[in-house]
């Protein structure tokens, strides 16, 4: 998958928009346990709708604090780099996605 270039200004705007939506989602999803319910929240859906441009921001967020971003990453990229033996293990899943990001150029090494 190639990431289309965006201008620095639009990158900043995208990141600000992502951070705003991510903060709202974290607040709304904090007490939820059903990932489907978490993923149906409007803020999460809007993040998915921003497409491949937000993948680096999600990976950055995952690196900062592992949480349920996997649904969004899979929906946006069509990938799932988490090995079966680590399914459900949040920290290991986050690490698998971060390494995937480095391999594919979505995350700086």
């Amino acid at each position, binding site marked *: 998958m190639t990431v289309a270039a965006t201008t620095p200004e639009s990158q900043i705007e995208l990141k600000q928009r992502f951070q705003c939506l991510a903060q709202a989602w974290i607040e709304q*999803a904090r*007490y939820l*346990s*059903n*990932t489907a*319910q978490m993923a149906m929240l409007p803020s999460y859906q809007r993040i998915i709708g921003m497409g491949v441009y937000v993948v680096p921001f999600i990976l950055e967020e995952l690196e900062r604090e*592992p949480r349920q971003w996997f649904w969004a990453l899979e929906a946006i990229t069509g990938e799932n780099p988490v090995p079966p033996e680590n399914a*459900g*293990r*949040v920290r290991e899943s986050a690490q698998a996605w971060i390494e995937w990001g480095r391999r594919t150029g979505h995350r700086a090494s």
Partner: protein
Amino acid sequence: MNRNLFPRLTQQNHQITSPAVPDYNCIAWAVGDVERWWQPGVYWPIEIQSNAVGVADLERAFESLGFMRCSGDEIELEFEKVALYGDSMFYTHASRQLSSGKWTSKLGETEDIQHDKAEDVAGDIYGEVVRFMKRAIVSS
């Protein structure tokens, strides 16, 4: 704790019993797993579609672990009990009865709490208790 989301929790009927960690959710905690976040299509005790996220789907998962429906939350010494919560669309939560008769819940990615009654965490984001289930305690 956002009391608006837990209108039945009071300072008297619950206490926080763990730090907040993102590693496991309430479904895992209900069966004593603190290493995985249980979710259909990701990690689940039975083969199931990832969009099978209703109360009946959760009940089937607990059945696969040896639980069966029961009538209520009274203590039965030979059984462990769980309460399942939900709304019209999603299962929302599960809690587990302790030997004291009180209940323990993992609240999303936040803390575990101990609460007096299963219903104490219901009433808003978790909907209501929709099922009690029990399974025999196997002595080791």
